[in-house]
């Protein structure tokens, strides 16, 4: 199975572990991520203003490029996935947005939300299957107690994201279980880390992150797993609890990355 792949700005730089292991594990698991040529940054946040067009165009271009290749579009970063999926929903359902965005694009055929946007975790769950993934694990992470940190962007708003139950998600716990580790369910796993506010308001982001990591530690988690570089940054800056990308755990379990203790 071949997918169009949108790595995003951070996966090329500070989050190389998220990207490199995503690609290597995909190969090992038998699906292929073909990076889109000339992709542009998604902008990091979905523009909430109903009249915003220009800030959504990089996503529209990526979505249309995947459509032209006849492929689903996969993202690994929570923010890219969030922005692409919400812009796609606008292109499918908001006629004013459809018209105005297509006026910029000058395509042979207008883009109207045809591309399916998937998060890498959805490919693992719905295409590879967690039972099948479990069979391919060579270094089970036995004895590790791992807390899933979902944050905001994968889950909300669930009317558009449709990723998992927004209040009681299970996909990361199922993923952790498939790798042979024990998932730790703690109350703050879908609370906000502060997001972009940490650029200026370090104290506010710090207080939010402390609540999250202390909650997880209180339930005996050894580490937290995330799909978002900004969550990882905010949580790491405010706690000694190791914060790892889900692709790092996957690579350990599949024998691609050296096992961490």
């Amino acid at each position, binding site marked *: 199975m071949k997918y169009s792949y949108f790595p995003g700005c951070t996966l090329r730089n500070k989050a190389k572990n998220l990207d490199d292991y995503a690609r290597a594990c995909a190969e090992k698991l038998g699906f292929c991520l073909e990076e889109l040529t000339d992709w542009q940054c998604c902008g990091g946040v979905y523009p909430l203003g109903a*009249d915003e067009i220009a800030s959504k165009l990089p996503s529209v271009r990526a979505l249309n490029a995947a459509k032209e290749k006849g492929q689903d579009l996969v993202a690994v970063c929570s923010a890219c996935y969030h922005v692409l999926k919400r812009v796609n929903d606008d292109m499918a359902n908001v006629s004013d947005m459809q018209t105005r965005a297509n006026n910029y694009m000058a395509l042979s055929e207008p883009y109207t939300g045809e591309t399916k946007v998937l998060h890498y975790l959805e490919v693992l769950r719905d295409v590879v299957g967690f039972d099948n993934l479990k069979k391919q694990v060579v270094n089970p992470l036995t004895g590790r107690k791992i807390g899933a940190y979902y944050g905001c962007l994968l889950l909300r708003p669930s009317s558009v994201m449709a990723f998992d139950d927004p209040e009681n998600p299970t996909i990361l716990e199922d993923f952790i279980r498939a790798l042979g580790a024990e998932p730790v369910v703690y109350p703050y796993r879908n609370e906000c880390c502060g997001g972009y506010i940490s650029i200026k308001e370090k104290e*506010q982001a710090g207080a939010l992150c402390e609540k999250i990591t202390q909650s997880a530690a209180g339930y005996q988690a050894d580490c937290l797993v995330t799909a978002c570089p900004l969550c990882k940054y905010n949580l790491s800056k405010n706690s000694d609890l190791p914060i790892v990308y889900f692709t790092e755990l996957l690579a350990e379990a599949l024998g691609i990355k050296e096992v961490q203790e």
Partner: protein
Amino acid sequence: MNKVDEIKQISGVNPLKCMKCGKCSASCPSFNEMDIKPHQFVTYVVNDDVEALANSKSAWKCLSCFACIERCPRNVQPGKLIDAARQILIRQRGQEGLSADEIPALLDEDMPQQLLMSAFRKYRR
């Protein structure tokens, strides 16, 4: 266009749907930081007092976590109103919440590009 129509147009929100249950404010991780709380934001728009919203600390405190949008039983989406109040500011010259000159002092070597991109989108145009 007056400010009330502007905030309704930018946000796409109909504040009259609100039944004042307060679930948005109860869900908000920035509640303690806000002078005008999310459920009050909706009331201020109903009462045509957008000036107060644009001058409030709250416009800059929303994290865009979408908890209020997820949990609103009437699909009012208060987070979109708060973002629109911020948009009204940052679309004017000199009103942005972050200037390029401030950036170098805020950087550290672990900071992901995503943070800079997001901050530029949220604090300025």
